[in-house]
């Protein structure tokens, strides 16, 4: 875990309300594992006050990329960054995806900006010799940030403007129908509603599913206790998303205990 002021290398809008930032940090780039996140301070002011958490999207050598929607004050400031601007970064934070193990195919399911942690995870899985499929859904084609670098992408849009006409669960079902469901493991990130539907689907079929959660955080490093999610198992009532998560087996946590952001 490091805290560093980096310099923006590249910033761009890549889809409808989807932005990326790229910057260099050798230490953070080398220490980061798939599914971990960074805590960014939008600027020096006290409004916004707290850092904002963003999944690491991609790492190439010492270059780190994040991807985000503009929803409020913090992301609006980040979207306005330009090459050369300074950025206060803390990371890597959280427990990585639990991607080691004996399985052949990893299915990475994402909705909207839930795509964020998938490329770095996909790259690592390929290096480990797994097959990788990305199933990525969005409301409409224009909201999909497709830079052509996603491994085996299957797109799903609510309005059918690109790829599968329907949601990611439908697209997954179609894929499994064609390719079979043996020896697969699923990793997912997106709105809680999507994760919930996916969880039901996977549980009904006995498919292992790990989800990457989002919730409001104050510190991101376990000192405020502000980011609990209820545990479905174990003897503690809550787990802290920032330090025990954000990646959990869907059956270890009570998804509904996190108020959904709209």
């Amino acid at each position: 875990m490091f805290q560093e002021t980096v310099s923006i290398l590249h910033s761009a809008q890549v889809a409808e309300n989807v932005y990326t930032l790229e910057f260099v940090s050798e230490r953070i780039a080398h220490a980061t594992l798939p599914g971990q996140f960074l805590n960014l301070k939008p600027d020096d002011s006290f409004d916004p006050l707290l850092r904002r958490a963003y999944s690491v999207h991609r790492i190439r050598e010492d270059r780190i990329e994040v991807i985000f929607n503009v929803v409020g004050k913090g992301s609006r400031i980040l979207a306005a960054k330009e090459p050369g601007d300074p950025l206060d970064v803390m990371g890597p934070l959280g427990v990585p995806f639990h991607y080691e193990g004996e399985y052949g195919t990893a299915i990475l399911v994402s909705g909207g900006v839930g795509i964020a942690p998938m490329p770095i995870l996909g790259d690592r899985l390929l290096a480990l010799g797994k097959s990788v499929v990305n199933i990525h859904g969005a409301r409409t084609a224009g909201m999909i940030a497709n830079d052509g670098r996603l491994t085996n992408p299957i797109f799903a849009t609510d309005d059918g403007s690109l790829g599968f006409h329907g949601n990611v669960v439908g697209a997954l079902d179609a894929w499994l129908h064609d390719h079979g469901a043996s020896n697969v493991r699923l990793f997912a990130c997106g709105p809680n509603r999507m994760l919930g539907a996916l969880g039901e689907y996977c549980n009904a079929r006995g498919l292992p599913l790990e989800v990457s959660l989002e919730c409001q955080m104050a510190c991101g490093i376990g000192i405020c206790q502000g980011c609990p999610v209820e545990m479905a198992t174990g003897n503690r009532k809550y787990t802290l998303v920032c330090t025990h998560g954000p990646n959990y087996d869907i059956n270890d946590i009570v998804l509904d205990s996190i108020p959904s952001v709209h």
Partner: protein
Amino acid sequence: MPGCIVVRFLASFPIRQSQRHSSLVASTEITIRNVTFKNPVLTASGTFGYGLECESFVDVAELGAVVTKSISRKPRDGNPPQRICETTGGMLNSIGLANVGVDVFLSSKLPLLRERNATVVVNIAASSVEEYCYVLERCEEHEGIAGYEINVSCPNVKDGGLNFGTHCPSVAQITRELRGRTSKMLAMKLTPNVTSIAEFARACEGEGADAVSCVNTFVGMAVDIHTRRPKIATITGGYSGPAIKPMALAKVYEVRKAVNIPIIGIGGIMNAADAIEFLVVGATLVQVGTALFVDPAAGTAIARGIETYLSEHGMASVRELIGSLDTSMQPSLIAAGWG
């Protein structure tokens, strides 16, 4: 950017160029009762975990002290989500005093803090006077605790959940009972949500407290206008951060005029300049809370910033700064109402 200006916002303050310089390193030591703090900057309860979470960022031995998360008799799960939300220049929290309980604290947290040479102040929360006494007595059986800070902003279950901290006789009683049970430093942490915080401070002083910590969080609330639901689970929560600093400072000023025991100033301290404001108004120590969520190393950075200020102002000791507020230029008027 034209003449790109990057200023670290934490622990920075505008330094005047024409200041007299001194090569002496100023003393930042402060002693209260039998505890010597190597500098006046402590971490605030509940904002630095047990002092063990940030090892890679902070050497806890460099802090004036670590004040622990409030410790209760039994472990506490804390409140359900949502526990926090950000507001302009501040945040609301409703953690619900989630903590490991006194037994686990003493057996598995305290020893590690000692190993790291931290000065440890144990903050105690409870829902009855007996529980306060119990937790303190358990702590008294152990070495390595410098003193106690008592969080009285807790519901008194015997009194239907009424907050101890807004009831002066309760605060006095807790102080008296605990004073009788320890010879260590005893600081009472006051809530600002009262008409006269001075009255509470005087009660603590009268019952033998060594210090008062001013202040705990203010009552606040926020609503999501789309769902029309409160943004945190308990509807109202504790408000902290730079937004509360002016009010916390006014409370310290009020208490300074009322008592002679040391004040531990708390509320919205983000950088050395903020900490210095509290010291000037009359706080002997300060605590840094919400700032640690932005920069876990803010405490040590602020301690260094105070040192720099002292030497740049030719002060030999932080004690010259404490209470140095100059009101000689203020007009002598019966405050006419502000608005």
